[in-house]
Structure formats: C-alpha cells, structure tokens
C-alpha cells in the first residue's frame, strides 16, 4: 500500500520545488479563493497529512418525538449516500463530496465512564478509567507522525484552546506520546507562529554542538539525583530523563534540517494576539496556522482540541462567537425552551469554521502535486460523547484525503434509528445506563485511516481490522 520511498530523500527534493513555488504566495497567508482546481486522483504528490479537531461536551441529540429532532439533531437523517444534513451540519453541504459522517462508533474501554473524562482517549483508545491509576497510550496523530519520520522540520503541531496538558481525565491536549504521556498543547497563536517560522538562533551549528554537550551534562545530573531518590520519586522522575532523551532526538532532527532555510512567512495579516475576546477570530487563526504549517510543509500532522471537557476555562467562552455566555452550559440547558437549538447553533459554528478550513485547503492546489491540499489532508472532526455525557456514538466527520483513496459523500450510519438521545431528566445519567447493543469499536475506523495514511498498523488500541465502505 505504502510506497517505500526513503522519506528524507524524497522530502528534500519535493521541498525545494515546493518552496520555490510558494514563497511568493506565503507573503499573503490569507489568500482569496483560488477557485476549483481540477482533481486527478490517479496522480499525486504522495504527501499525506492528518489533522484532528476535537470538541468537547457532545452534540444535540433530541428525541425523535421532540420538535427539534428534524432540524437540530447533530447527526444527519438517512444513511449511505442518501442523507440530509440538519441545520447543525448544513454548513458543510458544499463539502459533501469530500466528507463522510460516521455514527455508532466509540472506544469500548471507557463507554461506562462519564463523558467528561474521555477527551484523553479520543485519539488513543486507551482504558483511561474513571478514577485512580491512569494510563494512556500513543495517539493516532503521533503514530502517524512517527511513521513520517523526518519528512518535515517538525514532527507535529499540538494545539488546544486551553493550553498545556491539563490533568489526567481532564486533558487539554488530545496528543499522547509513545509512553502515553500527554504532549502539552500550545494555545497562543503568536507562540505557534514563532515556533514554526521564526529563527531563534543565529548560529544553528554551534547551538546544536553546545546543546548536545548540555544534554549530556543534564543526563549526568539527573542520574546522580535519581540514585538518591526513593522508589516512588524515582518513578515520577523518570519523565525528566525521558525529556532529556526526547530533546536530544529533536535536536538531532533540527541538526539535519539546518541547511534548509526556514520558509519566509511574515505574520502580517494574521492576528497573532487574538484571544477569547474575539472567539471566532481566535478559532479561525488557530486553523489558519495549521493551514500555514501545511502549506509550508513545516509539518504534516496537527491536532487542535477546541475545548476541554466540562467547561471552566478559556474555551468555555468560545460560545460568545454565537452570542451565548458559556459553551458547556449549552449542553446542559437542552431541556430549556430553545435549548436544542441553542446547543445546535454552537455546534454549527464549530462545523462552519472547520468547513471554512477544509474549503481553504480545497482552494489551495497541492504544491508540487495534483489536486488540492484537501485531497492530501485527512481531517477528523469529532468528540468523545454524543448525548448528555454518554461516551457512545461519537459524532465524527472525516473530511478530505481523496488522494489516499477515501470514498466520500456518505453517511456511515452504524447506529441506525436507535441512537440514545434526549435531555437528562435528573435521574440516572445516560453514561450510567446499561445498553443492549454495543457500538462498533472506533479503532476499526482508526486502523482504516492509518492504513490509508500509509501506516501499516493493525491492531490499533487492541482492535484489529478496518471498516468497509470508506
């Protein structure tokens, strides 16, 4: 499936071509639409990218008999190629032929855990539990990034609105490394921009030599301290040693990239200071940065957690973009008059911005290749809960990636007609209930996605076999 091309060699040839072609365009990061570019799926640059946009707190799931069912259900009505988008996702209609909506999938391990704890495992499928001991595993994006090796300067871009790692079961990031440790997400546009495009050191070769010695020295310090620690502390301290090793690897990578100049991008036209006082602009800027990182081929992997679960935090204010004070509250207020609609309007806003981002990729011809950048980029847009805190039937949208062989324009409706929905009536919460029928394990989809991304992995998160029809 995957052509066995030496990643480095291949990437460097392509990059030079790419940079020449794009330097002028980069001065204007916010390009007007370039119009439709003819797609020829047969050929292609071979470049594959992945981005995950995760949002918290589930989606509107009014009951069938509810007047809001027709208009404000998140999931479309129908199935297969015959489906109608509701008002929540109709903003994605122009991208219909580039997308697949999926219902009835979830990770099995934490189906009985409250939805607020489950952003952590969305991309990992790990059994992160409800209380006590916490263990996670590598996330899909990082697996793909590892597969790409050093094809790009940076292995991945990890972002969230709330920043940092958050806490176990309260993650502020959806990316986890090989040891299952949270990778801190960056939340400030300027820092993201500068980390991608601004040179910090004049003399990179010298810097690398000095840093190499420094890291050796830190390792010596760490080992000597470690020997004096108790067993309990030693375990906690392990992560420092790992940090030294990881920094070493990154440095090695940077060293190999030294000779290739950074793409010239001035941040002009991007509002890098934007914050939660302008939530829509902030959301757009974050996705624009992904677009920019992809266009400059600085990386081919990105994750963006739109918000932490359970409200409280910067991200809760994103709802101001559509005139509501707090986002998380909307998922609770669905029983109030107009509640489904309000929640739906918010989810629609998220879909609209992701759609705008996808459209932008679609309007950008793939540099040095065929088709649009969207054809070479797989977008996963979703959440780890559906109805009120229920960790089943994840709302999922796949966009783009046609050149990888995705057959889009469909609704893979695994849940059928009996999706659990409705407002919470104050009794047992949906996540505490017993269910007769189980969802399809989401990792099946992930296996298919990874395979189309060129990663021969099976199983993922202990689940084997992909899914048909995609």
């Amino acid at each position: 499936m995957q052509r066995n091309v030496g990643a480095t060699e291949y990437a460097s040839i392509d990059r030079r071509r790419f940079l020449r072609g794009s330097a002028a365009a980069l001065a204007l990061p916010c390009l007007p639409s370039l119009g439709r570019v003819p797609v020829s799926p047969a050929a292609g640059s071979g470049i594959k990218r992945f981005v995950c946009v995760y949002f918290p707190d589930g989606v509107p799931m009014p009951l069938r008999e509810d007047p809001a069912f027709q208009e404000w259900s998140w999931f479309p009505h129908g199935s297969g190629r015959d489906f109608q988008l509701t008002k929540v996702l109709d903003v994605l209609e122009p991208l219909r032929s580039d997308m697949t909506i999926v219902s009835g999938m979830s990770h099995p391990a934490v189906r009985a855990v409250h939805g607020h704890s489950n952003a952590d495992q969305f991309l990992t499928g790990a059994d992160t539990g409800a209380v006590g001991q916490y263990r996670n595993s590598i996330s899909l994006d990082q697996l793909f990034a590892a597969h790409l090796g050093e094809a790009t300067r940076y292995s991945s871009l990890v972002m969230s609105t709330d920043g940092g790692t958050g806490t176990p079961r309260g993650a502020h990031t959806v990316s986890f490394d090989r040891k299952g440790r949270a990778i801190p997400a960056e939340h400030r546009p300027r820092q993201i921009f500068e980390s991608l495009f601004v040179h910090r050191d004049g003399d990179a070769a010298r810097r690398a030599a000095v840093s190499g010695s420094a890291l050796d020295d830190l390792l010596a310090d760490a080992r000597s301290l470690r020997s004096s620690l108790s067993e309990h502390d030693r375990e906690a301290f392990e992560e420092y040693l790992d940090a030294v090793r990881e920094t070493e690897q990154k440095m090695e990578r940077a060293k190999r990239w030294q000779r290739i100049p950074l793409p010239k991008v001035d941040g002009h036209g991007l509002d890098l200071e934007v914050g939660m006082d302008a939530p829509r602009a902030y959301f757009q800027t974050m996705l624009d940065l992904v677009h920019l990182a992809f266009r400059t081929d600085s990386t081919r992997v990105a994750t963006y957690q739109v918000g932490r679960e359970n409200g409280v935090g910067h991200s809760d204010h994103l709802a101001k973009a559509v005139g509501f004070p707090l986002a998380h509250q909307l998922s609770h207020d669905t029983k109030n008059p107009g509640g489904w609609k309000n929640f739906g309007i918010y989810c629609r806003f998220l879909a609209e911005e992701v759609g705008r981002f996808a459209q932008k990729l679609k309007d950008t011809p793939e540099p040095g290749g065929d088709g649009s950048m969207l054809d070479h980029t797989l977008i996963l847009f979703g959440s780890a809960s559906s109805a009120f805190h229920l960790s089943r039937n994840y709302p999922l949208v796949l966009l783009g990636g046609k050149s990888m062989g995705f057959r889009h324009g469909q609704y893979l409706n695994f849940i059928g007609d009996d999706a659990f929905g409705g407002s919470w009536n104050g009794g047992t919460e949906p996540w505490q209930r017993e269910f007769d029928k189980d969802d399809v394990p989401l990792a099946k989809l992930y296996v298919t996605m990874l395979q189309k991304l060129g990663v021969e992995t099976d199983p993922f998160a202990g689940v084997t076999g992909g899914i048909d029809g995609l």
Partner: protein
Amino acid sequence: MPPPLMLDTTTLRRIAAVLCAGTLSLPAQSEIQDAPSSLDEIRRQGAQKSRYLAPEAGTPEPDAASGPDLEGFARDIEPILRRSCYECHGPDEDEGGVRLDEMDPDFFAGEDVDWWLDVLAVLTNGEMPPVDGPKLADEDRARVIDWLSLETQRASTNRRASRAHSSFRRLTRYEYDYALQDLLGVSYDFAADLPPDPASEDGFRNSSETLHIAGSQLRTYLDAGRRALELATVTGDRPTPLQWSVSMRDLAAREWDGQDQQLDKVRKQHEGDPAKAQEEVDKLLARFRNPPGGTWFEDAASGRKARQSWGYNGASYARKPSEELVDLPAPSDHVAVVTPNSSLIVELGDRVPERGPLRVRFRASRADGDGRAPRVRLMFGWQASNDSRSLIEVSEEDVVVDALPDAPAVYTFEVPISRIYPRNLVRGVHKLGDLPSPSEYIRLAHAGGTSSPVRIDHVEITAPAYDTWPPASHTRIFPDRKPNEGEQKYARRVLEGFLPRAWRRSVTKQEITQKLALFRRVRAECESLQEALVEVLATTLASPNFLYVTASDRKEGQAEGAAPLTDAELATRLAVFLWCSVPDDELLALAAEERLHEPEVLAAQVARMRADPRARRFAHHFVHQWLNLELLEFLQVDRKLYRNFDAKLKAAMLAEPVAFFDELLRADRSVLDVVHADFAVVNERLATHYGFEGVEGDDFRVVPVPANAPRGGLLTQAGILAMNSNGEDSHPIKRAVWLMERILNDPPPPPPPAVPEIDLADPEIAKMTLKQRLEDHRNHAACMSCHSKIDPWGFAFENFDAVGAWRSEVRGQPVDASGTLFNGQTLDGVDGLKRFLLGDRQDQFVRGMVEKLATFALGRPLVFEDRAALDRITAEVRRNGDGLATIVTTLVQSDLFRSR
C-alpha cells in the same frame, strides 16, 4: 509541646471523650432562639465548644504501636451502629451505597478508612442519623465519635512512620519565573513559553501529583535560562544611550500648524468679505480656546488649545533621538493637559534598543490645586498597520503627580526594556516611514480616579539608561577577572559562586568538576569565555537540581515519612512556601551553618520573610488557588442587567480577597475573620459598590465596616459572590458547593456533573425564583439527600445578586434567604450562616484553614497519615488565638513541614 506521654488506651479514650464532648450538643437550634446579640459574642461562645480548646486538651501523642483496637470496636461500637445505623446502612438496605456492617474497622491496614472518616464527619456534624431516622443517644454518639477519632489519630501516626508521601516535584511555572528573577536580579516573564500548569482537584497548582514535565519543556527551560543569563549579564563597553528630549512646544507645533491652516482656509474662503472673514476667524479662534477634551496642548500665552492628534501611518509623528544627553530645559509656557483616562503619546520611531533600562522623566503638575492628586502610568505600544498593534502598561506602580500647578516637579519611570512584550514585529525589517510601520511609542496615561488633569511641559526618554557599568546583575555572576587568572580558574570561581545559589545547597567537588568539563567542551564552540560560561550556567538552570524541590534522599534504615529535611531543603521549602521562589543569601547562609532548623532562628526567619515584599506572592498565589479566583477571572457579567459593573470593579473584586488575606497575615488577625470581621479592606471602587463612604483612590486600605452593612469577612466579598453566580443571577448551588469545598473543607459528595435540569417549559416553574425552582427540584427523592446538605448554605446568600450587591427583592418578590440543613439546622440569611459557623463550626473551619495552608506549604495532597500532625497544629493554633501568621509559624515549626 509537652513530651509524649505513654497512656493506656482506656485513659486515652477517656481524654478523647472529653475532647469531643463539645461537639456533641446537637447543632444549636436552642441557641438560635435566645441568640446573643452580636457576632462577637457568638464567636466567644463558639470558642468554648472547641474540642481543641477544652481545658483538658493536652494533645498527648497517641499510642500508635499497639495496633488496631478491633476488640473495642466489637465490644463498644458495633452494637451502637447496629442499633442506630444498620437499618439503612446494613444488610437490608445500602442507602447511598454505604454498608457499615461491611466496612473494615481496622484503620491500620484496612481499606475503608476514608469511609470511616465520612462516618466520623456526619456524626460530628450531627447529620446522621436523619431527623426522621432511628435515634442515637448523645452518649452513644460520643462513644462512637470518640473511638473513631482516637483510632484515626493512632493509625495516622502509625502509617506516617511507615509510608511514603512525597513532596518531590518540579517548580511551578510561576515559581520558576520568580526563582530566575530573584536569582539573577532581572525582571522579565521567564515562564512565558512554558505550558500552563494544571490545578489539582482542590485547586492547588503546586501539587506533586499534578506537576509533570513534558519532553518539549526541557528545551524551553534551556532557552529561558540562557535568555535570563543574557539579560542579567552584559558584554563590551557601556552602550551609548539615546535620548528623546521632547518639549510640548515642539510636539504642539503640528497642531498649531493645523489650526493656522484652518484659519487660512476660512480667510481665503471669504476673501472678498473681510468682515465675514473676521467673523469666521473669531469663531474659530474662540473654538480653539475651548478645552477639546482628551489630551490637548495649551499655549499659556495665547490661551490657544488643540487636541493631540496621532496616526501610525508613515510614522510621521515619530521624534528623532539624539546621542547627546541634555538637561531638561527651563519650563515653557506650552503644556499638554492630560484629562482623566486619556494619555499623552510620544512616538519614538524604531530605535528603542533591545535591552537595558528605559527611563522616562517628565515635568508635570496637577491642574487643580485641591482634591486628590492625579496618577500617571507608563504605557508602551506600537501600531504596524490596521490590524496589528499592541499597547501595554509597563510601569509597575503609578506615579502620583502631587506638584501644585505653580510648582511643577520632575517624575521618573524606569522599566527594563526586556520586560516589554510584544515589541513591534516589523522593527528592523521595514524602514521607518514604510508600511507596516516599525515605529513604537510611549503613552503617559492619566490613571483616572480624580477629576484633576495632569499638566506636562516636557518629556525626556533615555535608553538604555545604565547607572553603573557593568550592572550589578552582571558582576554578581561574573566578578572581575584577576590579572593572569586563567580561564579554567576563573570558570571555577564563577561556578563556585553561582551553583550554591542556583541549587540552593553546597555543591560537591565532583559536581564542580563535572561542570568544568562541560565548560571545556562548550568553550571550544564559543567565541568568548563569557559566552561559554553563560551556556554552562544556563545548563545548571535546566538541571533537576534547580528545577526540582525537596529531593527525598533518605538515609539507610530511616523511615521515609519521618526523615527530617536537611537545613538546605528546609530553606528551599520555606522560600517556596512564603516567597514562591528560591531562598536568598541569608537563608542559604543559615542553612550552610546548619542553624536554620533551630526553632528561634526559624521563627526569626519566618518573621523576616513575612515582612519582605516577596511575601505578597504567597498571599496572591495561595489566595487565588485556595479560593479558585480563576472563576472570577473568567466571569462574564451581563452588562445589560448590571450596568454599573465594569473592568475596574472586576479588578477590585479580584484584589480584595488578597488584600484581606494580606491584612490577616500582617496583623496576625484571627482566621475566624474570614467568616466575619468588623473591618474590610477596600478601595474606592469597591467602597462605592458596597455603599461605604469616605474611601478615595485605588489603594486598598483597612476601614471599619459601617454599622448594619451586611459585609465583613470573606464570604460576603463581592468578587466571591459574583464568581459563584452565573453573570445574570445568584447561583445558590455554586455558592454552597464553593463554601463547602473552600471554606468548610468538607466537599459535598461528587456532585452530579450536571446542573439540575429544571423544566422551564412548565409555565408554573418559569414563574418561580431560582430558589423556589431548586426547592421544587429538591422534592424529588433522588435529589433530596444531597441537595438538603448543600442548598441551604447557598440560600443564605440570596440577598446578594450576581455582582454581590445587596438586594431585598428578586423578581418582584421579597428575598427569602433561609433554608434548613439536612440535620434540622436553620440558616437564616448570611447573618444566620455566620452565627452558625462562629457558634458551632469553629474547629472545622480553623482545621480546614490549617489543611489548606499545609497543602500549599508542602506542595502535595494531604493524606490520612497527616491527620495526627494536623490535629496537633490546629490545637496549638487554637490555643494561641487562631491568628493567620500564627498558623504559618506553627506550621513551619511542625514536624509535618520539617520532614519529607
């Protein structure tokens, strides 16, 4: 503390029975009826119920060696539980999932200790059995509480000696920042690039449980450390300072030109009609004499005024600097008049240097002789294009312009340029005059708060304005190199000076040798000696020896829990606790002499540290984390409903709890003042909000709470009430849960993750007040048991709206601020709540305060093993009057603080 007494269990139990007796009077309905008149009186009476204060309450070391008292449990306790509890929590029913008959009464090795602690709490608080349940006689209750308390103490002491509980952790983001600033003597936000730290469940951000380090972080530490050292040190000769000497005469010239052009235009328009022309000219001249508002220039001679104009385009307002330093010229008759909340802008072009001090002097006076003196702050900004701009306040404190109109004085700001962020992005890329514009500016901004404008006639900006060269921050790291001193020798001297300060302990020869080896490797890559040394020192600042606090190295054969800290570790723990930073030279010297642990020395150091300005960080960070003031930072208030809510009020709300805490700490006031105090710490904006009179200005100060004002203490502070509302209306549940978690230290059972769903579609319900809705909701059996424990605490605050202002009506109905707790206790309004807390819950509150401070001080979650120590601290604190500073001192002197 008395030497430990060895007593047999029976004697101990007898003592404990006496200790607990005070808590037994079932909460105090009887007392409410003949309620004493003042809260002070209630507070005095409440103290008499304290088990910590009971005359017999020596706190003997409980005998932990004899193991669990299972026999006593079977003989004395189980029969009581069987009679009064098993009906609902036994074989037939497991109400709330609790079955007492299945819980293991072994506190030493059993796994049900947490459940037993809940049992102890509900019995002590009189919450069980329920009013309509089986009876539990007072003496039986006493016997159970007594047994549980003692068993808890014994087991906790026993477990402490044998179990690991670690405070080993890295510095938090803010501690790292302060540590570099204090160590190097430079001001900068060194933590800017570090990811935010997560908060633990109880809100603390310095917990060993939650502080991790990610791969990408190490690089950030290395970069930030190098950046810090580069900012602290200098190379080469003293840089030539640039000076912008700007008279208002010069600055105004452009505006006069503009006015002259307008005059010319009018004259030209009416060329044929001299009378008309004169009339129009006179009209204009009259207009030019009117104060235009904002910031304007004034020519005293002619009385002419013109508003200051500014535009970023083409940098046409930029002033040219000179390399020659000149004295301030004599005062001129041209002034700029800066009215409240407006500012004078001086554009500087693109030559403001990268670093060094930026000094701004300006000659000014107040425009009015009476009233409050105006204040001025320094802002720094730039605008590159339409959508790319920045304007930030860079002065740390306002300057008070107190000079009278006829005697202007010179005022000075000095800020490190390195602290200014962000600088103009296109500086050095685009030419001055081009777009996007690389130019930058300063603003002298009137801080408001008085009606008097500021008059300025001259502004002088100098940068970099070094007083000494090299600056002290440099020589502290790099002393003068002696003649003929070899590089290796000098490097060793630098390391020997720097490392003990950075690592907060003496360093071994081997460690120095290791760093010298690094120096040799790095030296080969660097052009200069200093550059190489900066690299080496930066490495020591990313070392775990700098980044981690309280290493837990233990001596062979010593139980971990009991191992005392070394003096050096104690110095670090103290500094991290009270300064959120690293120890200073005095602490390190005492630690090196191994004297710091001596009780008098330690007490003296705590007193010194409390008086140091760095102790403000403790107040700030502890209060923010303890109270979760983040809720207030994130609060959005509906401005349509609360028109008088503004940024200034919000800022004052955020500052009040910290200022209040600071006052308790400064004056060692009783922490019961948190519940109620007869004073408040407010500034003018808050005083206005509260309806207090006679408070002027932005500074916080202590004022008496006026008679009959429903304020005093922390619970009724506007910010606390507002942040536990939803921006539109009060929120009794949020307020109640917050109170239980943060103040009573008794979090409600894991709340349903949902705000209760209330059927607003039901027209009957839509008409109700929020309180009525909640009561309606509470009538559902499923919700009842939790909510009756929670809601009344919140109802008591119903007289306060969503911005914490007093109200007597809500939705046209009179406020009903009363509620009845599960145990039958009535809480009637905030006064009733205060009465209850002061009368019946003093021990719980003080003990809670001790726990919160201990959690913060140790940087780890408290565990069962700590309970005995916390009880001892609380007893001592209570005996000494509950002062906040007393808690801090007692805590620092305790074994808990002084061991790992």
